[in-house]
């Protein structure tokens, strides 16, 4: 027993991820934490998307279940779990069963390497970014098999569309990623594919790759940002599930629990690709302006922001408690909202504790950046019409791909400019 405690405690002094330290206990804890956190954020994302989209569209969104519809995702989950699980006549049963699990597995497995902080990742892989791209590309297998196994025309077309779309955009996405990975190699430490290494490189080079080699970093980021929307089949690239054309695309025939797995996978894939973007271009867990506003005073000031943000959210809840109707029917809702605000405020207060503050503000900054991307996704959905299939392919192959190649070459040239100039000078001197 003492050995076990020793084993558990020994990790805390180490300054590395549990996977790297080879500590199975903490690795399991981290896996569970990431899984729970991901599920919670998918639930939160579901509620937020409905509320934000509703307010963009001059409606209120869910208001009935819980204060401001806060419990609506839970009600939806219960409804979905209780629904009949229909398997269509003539469907390939085994494949039909397996397909959603492939998608969910692919979407969840990528989080093994996502760095929420310098030590807050399940493991740090030498091939981190390669692993993420590879595993997230496995999701397309689930989508294709789901469409095929349904034994119906609309899902089949949806599946073909989505596989073509995802395979095409993976190329452009890969090019953008390579350009960012290449940027890590223009320092003394040498390049790396590890997710943590990429953020560390941004720290040592003193610049987020978004601003690196202006405007090359921005171009790479934009390519990735377009490709990632296409990869996750979201508006305006939501052709595989284009409601007005293919009813629901590849998951037309799915219902209940299996459908909710697709839903879960879609949202966690969105979070996954956003984390890639944040890691590669937005400086991962680094706080804003680490090089401009440096020094211990600024560090201290920025480390208070997470707690303040939660306190602000809690304060908003209490403000809205005052605005709730005073009717007795709303009593439970008012109390619920106050309780929610209290929980948020409590989290905020806990985040002020010095020990917690130092360990968790990385996670906060990472989550905040990912949340900004999530908001972008919702914003796109509220604003844009849908592309047509040939236009989608045209953008992927005729715009993003050549731009990506040019970007790759330019990044290499700009990054190696001193060496190149030296060589040119050598040639002229001869």
């Amino acid at each position: 027993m003492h050995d076990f405690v020793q084993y558990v405690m020994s990790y805390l002094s180490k300054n590395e991820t549990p996977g790297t330290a080879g500590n199975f206990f903490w690795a399991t804890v981290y896996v569970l934490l990431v899984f729970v956190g991901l599920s919670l954020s998918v639930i939160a994302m579901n509620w937020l998307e409905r509320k934000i989209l509703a307010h963009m569209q001059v409606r209120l969104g869910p208001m009935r279940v819980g204060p401001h519809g806060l419990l609506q995702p839970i009600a939806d989950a219960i409804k979905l779990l209780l629904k009949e699980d229909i398997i269509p006549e003539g469907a390939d049963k085994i494949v039909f069963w397996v397909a959603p699990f492939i998608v969910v597995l692919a979407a969840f497995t990528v989080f093994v390497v996502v760095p929420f902080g310098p030590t807050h990742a399940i493991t740090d892989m030498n091939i981190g970014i390669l692993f993420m791209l590879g595993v997230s590309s496995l999701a397309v297998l689930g989508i294709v098999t789901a469409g095929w196994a349904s034994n119906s025309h609309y899902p089949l077309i949806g599946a073909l569309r989505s596989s073509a779309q995802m395979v095409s955009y993976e190329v452009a996405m890969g090019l953008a990623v390579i350009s960012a990975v290449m940027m890590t190699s223009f320092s003394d430490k040498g390049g790396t594919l590890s997710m943590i290494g990429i953020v560390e490189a941004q720290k040592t080079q003193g610049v987020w790759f978004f601003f690196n080699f202006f405007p090359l970093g921005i171009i790479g980021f934009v390519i990735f940002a377009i490709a990632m929307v296409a990869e996750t089949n979201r508006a305006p690239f939501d052709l595989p599930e284009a409601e007005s054309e293919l009813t629901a695309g590849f998951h037309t025939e799915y219902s209940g629990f299996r459908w909710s797995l697709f839903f879960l996978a879609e949202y966690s894939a969105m979070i996954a690709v956003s984390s890639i973007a944040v890691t590669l271009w937005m400086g991962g867990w680094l706080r804003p302006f680490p090089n401009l506003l440096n020094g211990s005073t600024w560090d201290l000031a920025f480390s208070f922001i997470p707690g303040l943000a939660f306190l602000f959210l809690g304060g908003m809840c209490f403000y809205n408690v005052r605005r709730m109707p005073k009717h007795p029917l709303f009593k439970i809702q008012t109390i619920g909202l106050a309780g929610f605000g209290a929980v948020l405020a409590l989290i905020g207060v806990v985040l002020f504790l010095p020990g917690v503050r130092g360990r968790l503000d990385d996670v906060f900054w990472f989550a905040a950046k990912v949340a900004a991307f999530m908001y972008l996704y919702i914003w796109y959905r509220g604003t844009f019409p849908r592309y047509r299939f040939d236009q989608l392919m045209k953008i992927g192959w005729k715009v993003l791909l050549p731009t990506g190649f040019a970007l790759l070459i330019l990044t290499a040239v700009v990054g190696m400019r001193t060496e190149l100039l030296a060589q040119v000078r050598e040639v002229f001197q001869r």
Partner: protein
Amino acid sequence: MNPPITVNPPVATPYFFYGLAAIMIIGGIIVITRKNAVHSAMALITTLLAQAGLYLMLYAPFVAGVQIILYAGGIMVLFLFVIMLIAIDRNMKERQFNKQWLVGIVAAGALGGLFIAVYTTVTRTPMGAQTLFPLGNRVSFVESQNTQGIANMLFDQHVGVYMFAFEIASLLLLVAIIGAVVMAKKRI
């Protein structure tokens, strides 16, 4: 016995090897026996992913990553795509094996015999009689240098010997792209 340059702990226990090997063999058997090509493809994907796991056990993470991206995520999607494009319903009702299946199995058996013969051959060496590939030569490497090592092999001016081969491979891919387009497109 002195521990070799142990930088990494062992990736996994031998049970992982046996588990992954069993998955691969069962997957391979399913691939060549199923009527339905989609089931075959799914089994092949499982085999490929298990193989990626074996690569990780062999301290070859980069090859494992390439295996996942290219094989499982690229080539197999292409396979599934084509299987769905061609009508397989009719094909499933037909005879699945050709007339030379007996000959085929006999030939494969002979090949297997050859393998067994090779792997059990005992040669005399200064260290005594041993098979071609002696047991127990596990060693650990700095895993984090794998990608860089492969890059050196491919691109480095001094160590790299595969630069030319790399260029030829890109040419091969170009030819393959053009060939595939010519084959598959109805009207060019």
